[in-house]
């Protein structure tokens, strides 16, 4: 009996250029959005995804054939791809949209990713992406992509072990009340949780090396995907200002205040 050829893994890591985590968000005067004239960087959950792909390669070595990163964004989003390449990806795909275009929505992104995957002549075995973006906190794209592709999905992964020979992966997921272990067949969509790994810093020599790695530019029209939003943002406001607390003198006063607030004692 002929042994089956060793299946090499092709990993796709979608990344998003978002407002930097440390920026203080300000709502625009028109209350339709936030000030985007601020520092941007890669979505932290996507950094974890890129790191996980690179760690998979460090573990599985030649069994990982390629790590490709893809982003949808204005011309500046190419910097985000360069950062991913500096962390260790092989090549990038930049789906370029105009600077003035509205931010793409999860369904549009999922459809674009599906088009990218279908175009890859070597195929894609594993998609690792952030569980949510820190700008919209939608947390939908990974799930939608798995649904569109009819692939297995393992979201909020805190541990990922892949076996290319058996084309299976064991994923530990963070769920309410604990951890869940899943055994999944490839191809698979994994979304990363914060506790999956600690991303490395792209050192200066790696950033320089990354400048030589290829980035393919493409438009949504080339993919046959329409990224026009189907949702309309009606209003954006800041959260209500915290009302100051008060100090009490003793426990009796505390109990009186709690009763005032409507908190009743529970029979133990």
């Amino acid at each position, binding site marked *: 009996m002929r042994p089956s050829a060793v299946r090499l893994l092709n990993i796709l890591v979608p990344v998003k250029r978002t407002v930097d985590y440390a920026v203080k968000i300000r709502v625009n005067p028109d209350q339709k959005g936030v000030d985007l004239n601020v520092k941007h960087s890669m979505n932290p959950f996507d950094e974890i995804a890129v790191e996980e792909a690179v760690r998979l390669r460090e573990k599985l070595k030649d069994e990982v054939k390629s790590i490709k990163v893809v982003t949808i964004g204005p011309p500046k989003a190419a910097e985000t791809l360069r950062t991913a390449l500096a962390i260790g990806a092989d090549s990038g795909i930049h789906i370029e949209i105009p600077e003035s275009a509205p931010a793409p929505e999860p369904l549009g992104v999922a459809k674009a990713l599906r088009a990218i995957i279908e175009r890859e002549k070597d195929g894609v075995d594993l998609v690792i992406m952030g569980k949510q973006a820190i700008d919209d906190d939608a947390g939908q794209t990974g799930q939608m992509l798995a649904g569109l592709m009819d692939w297995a999905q393992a979201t909020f992964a805190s541990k990922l072990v892949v076996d290319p020979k058996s084309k299976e992966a064991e994923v530990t997921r963070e769920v309410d009340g604990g951890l869940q272990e899943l055994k999944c067949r490839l191809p698979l969509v994994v979304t990363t949780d914060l506790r999956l790994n600690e991303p490395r*810093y792209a050192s*200066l020599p790696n950033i320089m090396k990354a400048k030589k790695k290829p980035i393919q530019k493409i438009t949504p029209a080339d993919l046959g995907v329409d990224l026009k939003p189907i949702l309309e943002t009606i209003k954006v406001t800041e959260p209500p200002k915290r009302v100051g607390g008060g100090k009490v003198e003793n426990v009796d006063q505390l109990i009186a205040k709690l009763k005032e607030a409507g908190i009743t004692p529970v029979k133990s």
Partner: protein
Amino acid sequence: MATRETRLRVISLYKELHRLGRDYPDPAYNFHKKLRGLFEKNRNLSDPEEIEKAIKLGEYIRNETLALYSLRKYRHLKRMYPQDSFSDPLP
């Protein structure tokens, strides 16, 4: 006398620290001034042991700064996206 090799090491360390300094969180801390000052202070070192010690100190500061950045980011993200607000901490 500083060899060509140590010169290159020092220059690449300076470039790396300079790039790191751009993201320093405290605006009151003048990272670049301190960086420049410390490198300038050691510009005339000739003893290879002393040069090596100075480079090691620079690398130490670089690693500490990197640790500062990743801890700061992790702590912020952990606060923004807590493990789970509703689960019972004790079984």
